[in-house]
Each structure stands twice: as C-alpha cells, then as structure tokens.
C-alpha cells in the first residue's frame, strides 16, 4: 500500500472498510420507452441539495448509447496516463475496441482534482470467449472489471453495461450533472444520488451510482451487514474495492437475479426478509418459501437502514430496509414510475401525479419497460 493519503489523486487505497451516509436518491423510468435529457433528473436531485454535502454526486442513464447498443461501454477513471496505458493494454488483450474517447465534460470551477475520464465501447474477442467457453459474456466482462479495479493501480471501471452509463464524481450532484453534460444524453431511465459520506473520505470512485454490467445502485443509508455480505460475495468472485457499503448491493442483485435467476420480488425478499415474528404468522406455503430464503440467502440479508434505487436494462426497483429507517416516496403518472427520498423531488419534475405513496419497508416498487418497446 503506497501513498495512502496522497492528496492530488483520487483515492484507491483507503484503510476503512465501509462508509455510511445520509444521502438523497431519485429516479424515474418511462415504461413506454420515451427518452428525455438529463435536465429533469438534475433538477430533482438538486432540490435535495442539503441531504448531500458536496462530497459525491452521480447519475445512471439507460438507453443513451443506441449507436453502440451491443457493445459493453466501459467508463474509466485513471489517476495517471501510465494507469491508462496499462489498462488499455489489458483491455486490448480481451476485447475488440470499437470506439474509445474521453468522456465529454465541461469546465466547471467547482469540480476539481478530477481523474482522467475515459470511455470505450468493446466486445469480447472470439478467442477469449473460446477460452472461457463455460462462462457467459457478462461473466467474463464482470471478471475483467474486477481485475482492473483490484489489480491495476490508479484505474477504476465505474460503469460496464450495454447502452447505459454511470456518471459520477466528487461534488454536488447538480454540478456533477452539468460537468458531464448530461443535458446532451437521452435516456428512458435516469437515477441520481447526492452523497453525504460519514465514515470514509469522499472520492471519485466512492460516489454513487455503483455499477457492474448494467446494474446501477444509488443508496441512502448504511449496510450494517457489509462484512457478512462482502464475505458471502467473495465466494462467488465478487471483490469489494470501492470502500463503501453500497457496492455489495449491486453485486447481490447481480448474483441473485442475473446468476441465480430469482424473480425480482423473491430476490428482494431474500435481501430484506420479513422479521421472524412476521414469518411465523404467514400461511404455510409462504412461510416455507420465506424461511427457505432466509436459510439459503442468510449471507445476502441486508441489515441496517437503507433506501435504494436499483436499475438494470429495462427496469427499476425502489427498495427500503424492512423497518423503513430511510425515507422513500413513489409516484406514478401515465407511463412513468418515480422514486425519491422526498415527495417534493418528484413533484418538481412531475405535475399532478396520478398516484403518490410511501412504500412499506421491504416492499419493492418495480417499474419495467413495456415488452414491445425496442431498446436499441
């Protein structure tokens, strides 16, 4: 571990194991596939400015790269040109790179000490697929992302999905959004986060969303079970490198839904199961299912206060801890589902919602792109 507290770099090596935070989250999905620019989501998260403290802001956007819809888009942070060179050589060994460019940004006085920000659109080389004939493309890409984040000093992949991207950094989210020129992207689904880190320093990689493949998670709260979740995930090849608790949520969703093919509702039940006292009162069949989930997925149980918005290609999940220790409001209007920490953050971008409600703890709110909507 070298240069631990180097001031002029974003910090890869931080001693603390996790951070907890009182933050703001907001997100919406147009289920009819309609796309819109990043203006509205920036206004929504900006209205909760005081829930963050300027040490982290970020966004996830889906449907933004239709010209490269079949390519994985890697968003990268580099400390140094050397880190970039090493990483690009590593990427070139496994991937065909269709396009590579700096992530467009604008000069903003308040955004400082930024890493080099780069993106490349890639597909796996045929020989890599052959070598890993027993793995899916997603498995191989996740493995390469884990390798870069763990083993290449000064390099971070902060987004690795297809036709989506995460944009994040140190600053207030409204500034980060303008820095990344989000008004120039068109997405059918946007999420945003304002960070108020409390246990570790704010650094570029530690801002939300946390992305792996096409999963992105924005999170308000603290995962008290982080240690257990982290050890559990390590069994399946997930390595926590971000020094913040939120990344375990992204990996758990990837494990339970993508790899174990659990329905979303069941995965949420495993992560925020009812209390045993509630399980005892359930009808037999339901009690058997939930007891089994608690037994099999004990290591995936998320304890502590949290509200999160989890997104993936074609869907969005708003999700609270089971005793609702963090706020979450949901609303619907026409074909759009909204979720946010505060009602005003929704009303600001949605006049007269048809429905607005406070979801119960542990009860997921799910929005899905309609089947007939073409993604590309």
């Amino acid at each position, binding site marked *: 571990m070298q240069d631990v507290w180097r001031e002029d770099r974003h910090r890869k090596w931080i001693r603390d194991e996790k951070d907890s935070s009182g933050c703001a989250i907001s997100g919406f999905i147009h289920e009819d596939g309609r796309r819109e620019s990043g203006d509205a989501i920036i206004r929504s998260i900006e*209205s*909760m400015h*005081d829930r963050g403290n300027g040490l982290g802001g970020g966004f996830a956007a889906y449907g933004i790269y239709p010209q490269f819809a079949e390519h994985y888009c890697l968003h990268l942070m580099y400390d140094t040109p050397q880190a970039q060179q090493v990483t690009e050589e590593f990427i070139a060994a496994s991937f065909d790179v269709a396009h590579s460019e700096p992530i467009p940004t604008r000069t903003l006085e308040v955004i400082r000490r930024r890493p080099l920000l780069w993106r490349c659109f890639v597909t796996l080389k045929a020989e890599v697929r052959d070598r890993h004939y027993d793995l899916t493309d997603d498995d191989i890409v996740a493995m390469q992302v884990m390798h870069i984040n763990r083993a290449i000093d000064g390099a971070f992949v902060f987004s690795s999905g297809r036709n989506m991207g995460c944009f994040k950094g140190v600053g207030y989210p409204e500034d980060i959004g303008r820095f990344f020129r989000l008004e120039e992207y068109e997405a059918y689904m946007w999420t945003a986060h304002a960070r108020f880190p409390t246990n570790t320093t704010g650094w570029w990689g530690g801002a939300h969303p946390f992305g792996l493949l096409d999963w992105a998670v924005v999170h308000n709260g603290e995962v008290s079970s982080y240690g257990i979740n982290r050890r559990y995930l390590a069994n399946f090849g997930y390595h926590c490198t971000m020094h913040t608790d939120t990344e375990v949520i992204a990996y758990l969703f990837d494990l339970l839904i993508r790899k174990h093919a659990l329905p979303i509702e069941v995965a949420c039940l495993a992560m925020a199961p009812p209390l045993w*006292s*509630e399980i005892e*009162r359930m009808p037999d069949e339901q009690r058997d299912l939930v007891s089994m989930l608690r037994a099999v997925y004990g290591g995936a149980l998320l304890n502590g206060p949290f509200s999160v918005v989890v997104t993936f290609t074609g869907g969005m999940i708003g999700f609270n801890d089971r*005793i*609702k220790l963090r*706020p979450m*409001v949901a609303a619907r209007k026409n074909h759009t589902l909204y979720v946010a920490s*505060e*009602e*005003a*953050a929704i*009303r*600001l971008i949605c006049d007269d919602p048809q429905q*607005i409600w*406070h979801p*119960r*703890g542990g009860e997921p709110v799910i929005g899905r792109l309609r089947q007939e909507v073409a993604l590309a």
Partner: protein
Amino acid sequence: MTTTAQAGCVTLSARGKVYRELNEEIRRAFDGGAACVELHDVIGHRYIGCGLSGSGRIVVHGTPGNDMAAFMDGPEIVVHGNGQDAIANTMNRGRVVIHGEAGDVLGHSMRGGTILVRGSVGYRAGIHMKSFRDKRAEVVIGGAAGDYLGEYMAGGLMIVLGLGRLPGQPISGIYTATGMHGGKMILGDDIEEYRLGREVGKSDLDTADRDELQRFVEQYVAAFGGRVEDILNRHFVKLLPVSRRPYGRIYVY
C-alpha cells in the same frame, strides 16, 4: 413581498428561493406585524416555521420540506398539500393542520401543541411524544399509521381515526406503541395483539375518553369536513402503558 387586502396578511412566493431566504422572509413578515403569511409554490422548502414563536398563522400551498414546525412555539401552520418527514419535530406549542398525508416521524419528540392530519402518515408517528405540566402533545391522524406508531411515547394523546382505508388495510402497522410508557392512544378500529408492543394494554374507552375523543373529532371535522357522529360511530379502542418505566430494570443500576 406583497400585502393583500386582508389586513395583516402577507403573501409570499417560494419560487426560486432556497429555504433560508424563504424562512427569513417569513420571520421578517411576522416581525413587521403581520398576523398571517400565505406561502405559494412551496416545494421541498425545509424548516418552515422552525423555532417560530408568537401567535401568527402560516398557510402553505404546495409540498413543504422536512422539519416543518420543528421547535415551533405558538403559531399555526395550515398545509394545503402533503407534508414530508419530521413535521413538528420537538414542537413546543402551536398547531399544525395538514390537508393531505404526512411522511415519517410526524411529531417526533413533540412536547406540546396539536397536529391534525387529514389522511394517513408514514412510519414512527409520535415517536417519543411527551407531556409535562401544562404541556401536552396531541395528534389526530385521519387515515392509517405505519409501523412503530407512538414508539417510546412518554406522554400526550395520539388519536388515529382509520378513515378511508383500503380493504384489509390495518389502522396501524406492527410494533404499535412499542416502549410506550406515558400518555394515551385511541384507535378507530380494533387492532390485533401481535401489532402491539408488550408495554401497552388494550381496553375500551370510558366516558372521559369519549368526551375527549369527541372534542378532537370536532376539531378534525371543523378542519376537514365530514360528520362528527359518523366518525364517533366507529369502534374505538384505547392503549395505555402498563408501566411508566418499562426499562427501569435494564438501565438503572
């Protein structure tokens, strides 16, 4: 700032203002002798009426932000819309009327004054509400309450009427009145034992309870409409703590 024809009433727009500016303008209006301040375009502005004393009236149009009426000591706030979280946090005196629903931790640690909510509220309403000498916190919720209603309640009166619920929707969630050790709770429907904390006992209302309930239902109807007798016609139950010091054995050496 514009003064309307109504004597002493100041109308303000919150549009484009951060909460600090808005709250300073409200204070200036009352300092300047206004009896009433009407706020338009409120959307997430925090701390409205926070720490405010006197006998003024604030009328809010929109969605006021968190900690509205926190530490308030005297005024009345009427909201035409939904409230967010932590309304009347540690309020000392005054009155809050919400013509909609409210979020989590309504009346958190409230020490005195009255809250009326037309609809339902989120989790932990009335957590650690209190009373002391002439001060008594009083809350009337028209709809249903989320889990942990009146958790650690130390005093005051919590009434949940249970009006307008969905089929099968309970009047209050689980862990109702857990740790309650003072005050009184009145619910407009029966509640299963498993929803209650161990620290309370359930009983029927006596004559004094019914008289008190009627006074608050009259206030509710005066604020939001409806008929007093229709509401009083429901089956009400009362929750009282079984001990004033449920944790005395745990924490006292």
